């Protein structure tokens, strides 16, 4: 069963109040006020002196479990919101692999589900490793078996990568996560996902419908993931949300009849929406605060919007 072996997160220490983004992004005073009052967004992390390569390396540097195990890493998956993040032929993913001694690994990027690509990467990594493990001499429970490294995190380098109109403000940061085909901790119990190609922001013709169906669609995959895990919301210790904004999760809790204080929202005002790294950022916070005890079940949820919309939910056991 797919397991998260170790997680590391890097958030640049420089915090920018969203008011100071108004000028560069052409936001009105009213839009900034809306972000602050209703969306609960106050600051984002930015570090203009650190490149995308630097961001990813800082996250990977914190992954102590990777050291000495590089030879076991068979796949490196870069989960990303934005399809293009560097001018050709610059390839930060391959540069990171080289610096980490992972040139032997098959490295590729997943962007197809926008901000839900982080959860997709866990699913894909788990399935690739499970398929390989079946052929291993010691079978799928080989604790020295193959690993996958999932990287995520982006630079807020264009306007589209800095703000999603009237919805969220993106913050810079990165995460690195080691995944195994089987492991004792943070076992993936279920994954549900719904890809809705009709919600393509390029045409915008279904934007109103997306707004109406956003929360019910996310609730549907959450319930489906719970069903698959044989659990109910009562079994969930904490929800690790996507950090899109606070009001979305306040409303989700009303819809799901789930207590708001069990959704980890504290990173939204402090860091903004850290692209696909939200789940890992929130996971680290949950661990640091002792919110997860061994055996606790928790739920991660994400929505990717852009070229279509993806609603995704994963259930884990810590």
């Amino acid at each position, binding site marked *: 069963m797919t397991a998260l072996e170790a997680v590391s997160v890097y958030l640049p220490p420089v915090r920018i109040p969203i008011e100071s983004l108004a000028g560069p992004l052409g936001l009105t005073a*009213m839009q900034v006020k*809306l972000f602050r*009052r*209703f969306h609960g967004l106050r600051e984002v992390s930015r570090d203009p002196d650190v490149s995308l390569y630097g961001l990813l390396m800082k996250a990977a540097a914190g992954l102590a479990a990777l050291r000495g195990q590089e030879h076991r890493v068979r796949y490196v998956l870069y989960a990303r919101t934005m399809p293009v993040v560097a001018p050709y032929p610059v390839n930060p993913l391959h540069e990171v692999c080289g610096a980490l001694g992972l040139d032997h690994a098959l490295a590729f990027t997943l962007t197809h589900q926008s901000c839900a690509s982080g959860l997709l990467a866990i699913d894909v990594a788990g399935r690739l490793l499970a398929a390989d493990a079946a052929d291993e001499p010691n079978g799928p429970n080989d604790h020295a078996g193959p690993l996958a490294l999932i990287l995520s995190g982006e630079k807020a380098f264009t306007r589209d990568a800095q703000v999603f109109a*009237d919805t969220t403000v993106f913050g810079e940061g990165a995460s690195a996560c080691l995944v195994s085909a089987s492991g004792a901790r943070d076992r993936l119990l279920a994954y549900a996902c719904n890809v809705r190609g009709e919600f393509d922001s390029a045409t915008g013709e279904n934007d109103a419908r997306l*707004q109406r169906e956003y929360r019910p669609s996310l609730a549907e995959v959450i319930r489906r993931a719970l069903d698959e895990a044989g659990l109910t919301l009562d079994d969930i210790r904490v929800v690790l949300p996507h950090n899109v904004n606070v009001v979305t999760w306040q*409303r989700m809790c009303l819809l799901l009849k789930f207590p708001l204080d069990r959704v980890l929202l504290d990173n939204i005002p402090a860091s903004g929406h850290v692209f696909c790294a939200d789940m890992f950022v929130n996971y680290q916070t949950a661990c640091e605060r002792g919110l997860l005890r061994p055996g606790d079940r928790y739920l991660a949820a994400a929505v990717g919007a852009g070229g279509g919309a993806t609603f995704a939910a994963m259930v884990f056991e810590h």
Partner: protein
Amino acid sequence: MAAQETGLDAEFRQRVVVVMTTVLARLLDREEPVTEDMRLMEELGLSSTFGLELLLELEDQLLILIDVELMDADQMTTVGALATFVASNSRPA
């Protein structure tokens, strides 16, 4: 539902209506008067963005905090329905 049945402060609700119709006319750049029975989306073409902006203006002008998280599509049908929601689900700032 009549205001009296819900314990709603009718006078406060009326103040909400007055501010709301004025702000809506300005936001939507509309010369004709906005009335309570008008449908916000279908008739006035109010987007969700303008909807939030409207609520923010109401908060500023009436010195209140609105429980936005409690709002759903049912409360956004007409000007009057939204005024009732705001009057019932807000507190002094």
